[in-house]
């Protein structure tokens, strides 16, 4: 197990290195410049600025300096907020994003499992059909549309929750729903399919033949077996939550890294773009590692490659 995790961590570092390299060169190829008033700047001003940010050095040297910084957790200085290290900028905003993402994930998976399981148990009835239609809607309505609808009807008309902002728990409800409905719909569909498979399997029949009631059969045998494959969706969910957060954080005015990321792209704030990309990638590779470990812990049939236990 330890050996496997160490190997995976080595791969993670390699992945991050590749991501860092690709973003670095993509940044350099991006049109536009970080200076808002470049047209009005004199040659001297430009030269001084370029020197200050190291843009006058050859590309490979900039790359090496950048990588060396990364190793120490230094993403450089933000262009947008003068003298603010990117790491500090991200650090101050990651909490909100992580909380929102986690809440959305829990909300989506929890209700998705319940809806999917009920649909499977009541398969081919109106309950099942309703659940299927709802999850198709949930999957196809873009989260920003849903976000605006929630703001208008729930916040503005009904006044149940604040319309935007961040700080109190009630402010987190609407963005959590807006962000979590996608994973919820996906989970419901996935669990329904997987649960129907399970419920029609031989071992469920044997469990019934033991004299267990339907509730006992589901609780003791069906639920665990149909939820295990759900773990593999954790990675894709993380990706969809990350991209979703860029939109949702903007709509609900949440001070997270998603919102920051969009701002930094609009202003060509290269160090922040690169720093955020790497943080996102880091988050994803960690989730993928956790996925594998969790999978091997809950499914006795899976043994991690290269582990001896």
């Amino acid at each position, binding site marked *: 197990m330890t050996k496997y995790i160490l190997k995976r961590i080595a791969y993670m570092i390699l992945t991050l290195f590749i991501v860092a390299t690709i973003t670095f060169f993509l940044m350099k190829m991006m049109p536009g410049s970080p200076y808002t008033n470049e047209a009005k700047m004199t040659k001297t001003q430009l030269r001084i600025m370029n020197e200050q940010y190291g843009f006058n050095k050859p590309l490979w040297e900039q790359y090496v300096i950048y990588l060396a910084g990364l190793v120490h957790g230094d993403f450089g200085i933000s262009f947008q907020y003068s003298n603010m290290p990117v790491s500090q900028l991200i650090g101050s905003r990651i909490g909100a994003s992580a909380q929102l993402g986690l809440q959305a994930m829990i909300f989506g998976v929890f209700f998705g499992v319940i809806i999917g399981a009920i649909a499977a148990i009541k398969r081919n009835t109106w309950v099942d059909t309703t659940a299927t239609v709802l999850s198709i809607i949930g999957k196809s309505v873009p989260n920003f549309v849903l976000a605006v609808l929630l703001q208008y009807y729930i916040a503005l008309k009904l006044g149940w929750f604040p319309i935007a902002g961040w700080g109190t728990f009630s402010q987190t409800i609407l963005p959590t729903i807006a962000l979590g409905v996608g994973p919820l719909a996906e989970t419901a569909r996935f669990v329904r399919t997987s649960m129907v498979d399970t419920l029609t*399997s*031989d*071992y469920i*029949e*044997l*469990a*019934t*033949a*033991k*004299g*267990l*009631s339907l509730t*006992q059969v589901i609780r*003791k*045998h069906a639920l*665990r*077996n149909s939820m*295990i494959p759900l773990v593999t969706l954790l990675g894709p969910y993380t990706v969809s939550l990350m991209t979703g957060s860029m939109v949702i954080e903007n709509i609900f005015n949440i001070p997270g890294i998603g919102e920051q990321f969009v701002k930094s792209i609009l202003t060509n704030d290269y160090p922040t773009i690169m720093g955020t990309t790497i943080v996102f990638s880091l988050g994803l590779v960690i989730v993928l590692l956790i996925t594998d470990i969790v999978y091997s812990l*809950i*499914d*006795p*049939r899976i043994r991690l490659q290269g582990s001896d236990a």
Partner: protein
Amino acid sequence: MSERILDVKNLKIDFHTYAGEVKAIRNVSFHLDKGETLAIVGESGSGKSVTTRSIIGLLAGNAEIMGGSIKFHDQEMLNNSEKDWQSIRGNKIAMIFQDPMTSLDPTMKIGQQIAEPLMKHKHVPKKEAWARALEMMKAVGITNAEERINEYPHQFSGGMRQRIVIAIALICEPEILLADEPTTALDVTIQAEILDLMKDLQKRVKTSIIFITHDLGVVAGMADRVAVMYAGELLEYGNVDEIFYNPQHPYTWGLINSMPTLHIEKLESIPGTPPDLLDPPKGDPFAPRNKYALRADVEAKPPFFKVSPTHYASTWLLDPRAPHVEPPAEIKRRWAKYRELQAAKSNS
């Protein structure tokens, strides 16, 4: 006479399908006595599984019992509520399924799976139930049981898994064990081991067995009595010797002729296919494939003619007015042997 524990009378089961009503079981009657083994044999689709499943209340959702009765002791099973069924299943009547590779929960420890019926029905605390499960694992011949009790199904071979399934079925010492082709999915050598194990445990637990198979070959060593099923009906039943050495229904002849033995050089499979159960034939269902069939067999359902107090067959060939037909050579050889046996019996 031994105690009768199960009495099935005129059972009729339909399946509702898009194509119409599949009349899968039509007027099937049989009984089971305490401690005996009844084999139900017949080709694929003859209704063996549906019949057994009805005894434990595990019919598919589109099935409907159209009539008849299933009596377990004095209890009419067809009046059972779901709760009644739950208290019987795995407790008084247990079932073993065909495919051991898929019959066990892949994510639950073997010990828990074996202990589960005991905890459910006898309200035995977990620790004690596991101790009983361990004993049971030893009884079904799993070596190193102390360690293996904590393992998962994928760590066992097919034969071992079927032993585990048997342990699950027998842990509550049921009165009836329904075994639906328990060895079909296994290697021949392992088949024999599992059959021996079942016979051995049957004596210890004192259970009656309904043993389903399409392979007459395994019946001889296993069963006390045999019921021959075809296209949803029973055609002949009797003691194992009567069925093997004095068969009367041409379908039974066909089954025996297609069974590999030392005496038959050329195996003959029965030509043709079973009838469509959406619209079953009005006479003997086997008549269309039966070269010995009389006109009466096609036109009217033959009653059960008594061959001996324990042996009945449903064919007009047994009617006193029927013309003489010459059975296949192998059957004649068996009849001759049967007469010898009978003569030897009455002499001694």
